[in-house]
């Protein structure tokens, strides 16, 4: 017997609210990790219950033609994170400081790692400086590995809009790699 889809469970929860607990059991760990990657453990732990409470209260608006609730939940989570921009920025900057170290597995500091050390804080700043909608699309795509379609569902946008936002975000990051003039950072 196959288990009921998220859409089935949410439909059932309209009459039997307790059924919504199953949506939590299925997806809470994924969403907790998502929130943690964006804003650190403390904020994520405080938000995960809130995320599902909001989802529960809005469950009537869930589009039942979508089998999985995951993109919808990501969308609610992404919105919640907007209220925690400072924590998000702090976590991102700390991640930028730690990122290059992970490449130096052999203990030697390579030229590439040195370059990266200069570059990653700037990448973090650039991501931070993206308009909210572009940052959301970029991080759902790059970190959560959602498809264009899922990003579109999460952000409630047409897929074409997601594509153009991702292209804009990419272009802004590319400017970092190919800056004009003396500001250039070498990459290999």
């Amino acid at each position: 017997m196959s288990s009921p889809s998220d859409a089935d469970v949410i439909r059932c929860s309209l009459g039997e609210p307790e059924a919504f607990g199953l949506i939590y059991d299925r997806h809470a760990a994924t969403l907790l990790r998502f929130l943690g990657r964006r804003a650190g453990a403390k904020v994520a732990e405080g938000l995960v219950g809130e995320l599902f409470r909001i989802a529960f209260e809005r469950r009537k608006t869930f589009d039942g033609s979508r089998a999985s609730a995951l993109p919808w939940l990501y969308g609610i989570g992404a919105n919640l994170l907007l209220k925690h921009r400072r924590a998000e920025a702090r976590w991102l900057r700390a991640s930028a400081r730690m990122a290059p170290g992970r490449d130096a597995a052999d203990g030697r500091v390579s030229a590439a790692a040195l370059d990266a050390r200069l570059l990653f804080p700037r990448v973090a700043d650039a991501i931070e400086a993206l308009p909210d909608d572009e940052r959301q699309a970029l991080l759902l795509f790059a970190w959560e590995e959602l498809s264009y379609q899922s990003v579109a569902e999460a952000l409630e946008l047409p897929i074409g809009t997601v594509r153009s936002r991702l292209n804009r975000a990419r272009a802004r990051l590319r400017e970092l790699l190919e800056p004009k003039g003396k500001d250039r950072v070498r990459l290999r």
Partner: protein
Amino acid sequence: MKPLDLAKKLRRDAAFEPAALDRGKETLMQAIRQEVEPRRRLTIVPQIPYEDIRAALSFLERAFGFREIRSSRMEGADGVIHHANVEFGGSVIGIGTQGAHGAVSPKSAGIASQYVSVYVDDIDAHYERALAAGAQIPRGPRDHAREYRAYEALDLESHRWRFVQWMQAVPPSEQR
């Protein structure tokens, strides 16, 4: 390196406390209860007296899968719990201090004057759970006229609980 690969390098997982997911679920369950409760006002709530409410709550959760409704706990400044409610499958039972309202725990009375029937979905799994948590089992699971299967357990203070699973889709009491 491509711009997206750069962004991917900054992906870093956080380390969570093990209980983080449980706490999140409790937030959700409170919202669910708030929606359910005004709709369905309980008309009968048995009150079960205990000497040690905190130990009772822990046992009832661990052994029987009851869940405390945290928002309704009455706790003194000294941390002593005076009353709590636990729920199971939409029904609620009060867990009170023995001596209050003239009710006495069988642990001090030496005798029980009532037992509570609880209807469950998977009685054998429930039995295993109760057993593992240290419940005493005066009567193990057995079938009754192919209509239901039941077992009885004693909790920490010797209150008797009878767990029942219907073996038919519609219980005879509801057949017309």
